[in-house]
């Protein structure tokens, strides 16, 4: 087990650095004065110019800049926004909301997705299964922001169950609607994967053997079908954390949630490419770490993995 953890940790490091390097290289594709790119497109004095050049090592060769960029990312130093605020402060301000939102979305996705998927898989080709299939296909087909707008309109504006936008002083109930919207995109895939996995396991040899032992049907389903089906689903939900983060940019924008995604959106609108890249870099780092955790969880769920 510990070898597996160690190996996975070691594998994460190059991926982590590689991802940051790619983002750095993309940033280099920009045109124009690098100083203005970092300070906003307004004239700056020579002193400010020198200060920025020194802070971002703009006079060094590109590989040195890359080194500083990677080092910055690892030490959580992401530079400043146009207004001079360190990006890290911006992240500190906004990240807690996003984490709360993401955890809520993940919970909704996992609980509902697994429950519905299991029911559908146990009664394959039944009415419940078919309707779940149709609904999940529809949900995949409609962009998340359209779903968001409609939900906002129906539950926020028309029915008035929640406030349509969240704003600065957010509370957990405010986040329920955005969390549902955020969950919906992945939710459909979770249902389908759980369904396939459950249906596959139902016809597995070891399930027949479990039945032959004289176990009651619900014990067979709980211990041998569900438990085994969850292994791929958990991995999948882990991979989905990535689209959850991308989804956060959109959902937070729609509902005006003061999270990191909203901050990214504002930076895009103002052409602050450096800030956008800084925020994305941070999100990628979080994602890589979360994937690592999910892989470790996978090893806990499946004893075979631990000895690879």
């Amino acid at each position: 087990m510990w070898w597996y953890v160690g190996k996975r940790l070691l594998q994460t490091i190059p991926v982590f650095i590689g991802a940051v390097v790619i983002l750095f290289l993309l940033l280099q594709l920009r045109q124009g004065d690098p100083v203005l790119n970092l300070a906003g497109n307004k004239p700056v004095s020579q002193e400010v110019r020198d200060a920025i050049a020194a802070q971002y090592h703009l006079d060094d060769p590109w590989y040195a800049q890359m080194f500083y960029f990677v080092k910055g990312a690892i030490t959580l130093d992401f530079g400043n926004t146009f207004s001079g605020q360190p990006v890290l402060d911006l992240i500190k301000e906004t990240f807690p909301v996003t984490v709360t939102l993401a955890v809520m979305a993940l919970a909704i996705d996992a609980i509902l997705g697994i429950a519905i998927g299991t029911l559908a898989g146990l009664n394959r080709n039944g009415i419940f299964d078919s309707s779940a299939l149709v609904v999940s296909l529809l949900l995949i087909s409609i962009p998340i922001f359209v779903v968001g707008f409609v939900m906002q309109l129906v539950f926020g504006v028309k029915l008035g169950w929640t406030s349509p936008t969240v704003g600065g002083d957010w509370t957990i109930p405010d986040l329920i609607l955005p969390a549902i919207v955020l969950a919906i995109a992945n939710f459909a895939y979770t249902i389908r994967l759980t369904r396939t996995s459950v249906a596959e396991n139902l016809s597995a040899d070891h399930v027949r053997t479990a039945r032959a032992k004289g176990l009651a049907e619900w014990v067979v389903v709980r211990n041998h079908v569900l438990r085994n089906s969850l292994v791929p689903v958990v991995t999948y939900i882990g991979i989905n954390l990535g689209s959850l983060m991308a989804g956060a940019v959109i959902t937070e924008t729609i509902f005006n949630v003061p999270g990191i995604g909203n901050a990214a959106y504002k930076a895009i609108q103002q052409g602050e490419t450096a800030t956008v890249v800084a925020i994305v870099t941070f999100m990628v780092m979080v994602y890589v770490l979360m994937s690592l955790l999910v892989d470790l969880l996978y090893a806990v769920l499946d004893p075979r993995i631990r000895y690879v």
Partner: protein
Amino acid sequence: MYETEPGTRPGQERFVAPVDETPLREIDAIDVDAVPENQWKEAWKRLRTSVLFWLALSILGVIAAMIFFPTLFTDVSPSKAELSKSFDSASSGHPFGYNQQGYDVWSRTVHGARASVAVGFFTTILTTILGVVTGAIAGYYGRFADTLISRTSDVFFSIPLLLASIVVVSVLNNRFPDRGFWLSVLVVVLALALFAWPQITRQMRGAVLETKNLEFVDAATAIGASRMKNLWRHIVPNALAPVIVTATISLGVFIVAETSLSFLGLGLPQSVASWGNDLSAAQTQVRSGQHLNVMYVPAAALALTVLGFILLGEAVREALDPKARKK
């Protein structure tokens, strides 16, 4: 062991079935009348009887008509903006009225098909080619090539698709501020493809690894077929089925991704008629709850298209399912 002589207990007497009831077949006889079929022909036969397949095909047929013959659906130009008609309701020839800028909603939707589907189509082609080639090389040659390709794809895979394309498009937008139709499509395609290929690579690599150890590959080697020939004649064709399914479904996913980019102001430029742009422009109306058809019409067209590709992918998956094949 038994008290009585064997064969004397009730129910266990010697029994021989009458021969005419169970005529012997020739061992391993061949059914001479069957029509020959290979995997693809068989899959096509199953596709032809699939409701899902025809449903998908009819949806996609309509969309294809919109792309190649938009004038069949509307003779209003999508670029004709009459500000005076902002939010005018439906009238003859304008079944869904006008949007804020005074564009005809229906005409924008019909003409928007081209850009949205083009993005999905070309991204899929690019990722599939990249993924199949890299995945096949990594899986077949192994060792250094595998390490290089797998680790690289890990890195690209670690950046979520939409986040990555946000960065690429923001950078490229700044590089090419004035773009025509094809250049803008190309920018979005590159942004999506750059980070979407690892999925196909992984799938292809897995399928090739599974196929390359099958005995017919060894048999071909023993005949004297070269490694390249083996890879492209035997292994890749047999490993392709799951990739085709993924590619079809991801075509729809890329179309959705493009609209999400447009929503963030990072998709195709405003000058190009696309569903993403129309939906993005519709957001202000949605907040007020007025003139909702400005959003519903392009959203419906988009959802139908994506659904069409997903259903097609599902139908193909079912037709190619090896479990279904073995009867």
